[in-house]
């Protein structure tokens, strides 16, 4: 039973023999790279890049449900991308707009 299910996955139109599998699987690298960059100081983060990552993640989550073949791997990776992008943006915004007051007070 397990073998036939595995076989079904192996032969799936979005399975590991196709680019429909490997492209989204590699896309996890973007989210992982972003998670590694959670440790970076916010001054080193790029607004344009993080906005692009977030917007792309949100729009592609929708895209992956309307292409042929429908691609849940791609869907999940884009949800994750949007999540990491939003987190990075919130870190940078918090640093740029809400932490300044404390820094100014500390200098005085």
């Amino acid at each position, binding site marked *: 039973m397990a073998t036939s299910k595995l076989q079904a996955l192996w032969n799936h139109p979005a399975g590991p023999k196709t680019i*429909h599998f490997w492209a989204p699987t*590699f896309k996890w690298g973007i989210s992982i790279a972003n998670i590694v*960059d959670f440790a970076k100081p916010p001054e080193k983060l790029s607004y344009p890049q993080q906005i*692009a990552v977030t917007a792309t993640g949100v729009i*592609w989550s929708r895209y992956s449900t309307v292409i042929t073949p429908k691609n849940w791997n791609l869907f999940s990776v884009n949800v994750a991308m949007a999540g990491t992008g939003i987190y990075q943006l919130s870190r940078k915004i918090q640093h740029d707009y809400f932490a300044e007051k404390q820094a100014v007070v500390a200098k005085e």
Partner: protein
Amino acid sequence: MASLRSFFNSPVGPKTTHFWGPIANWGVVIAGLMDMKKPHDMISGNMTGVMCIYSVLFMRFAWMVQPRNYLLLSCDASNEAVQLIQLSRWAKGNGYLGQKKDEAAPQ
């Protein structure tokens, strides 16, 4: 006008996500172009390296997906170029590309 209208109504036109998905990805390309003027220590080696491999994979994906997506293909080809340039700037700035002058590289 007629060709514009037929594009507008096409299965990969602006009424569909097959259009807006790739448009969103152009944002990554534009972000990369905007970041070209920034100092190299603002570049994330992780993200840029990943983007280089990712763009090649998605060029293939754009070709094979139904419907075939030339907008996505062109976007990822451009992103590949931009990210490779950024990667070389990062590598150079971090001393990975050999220096021509006889300078002692920081170890």
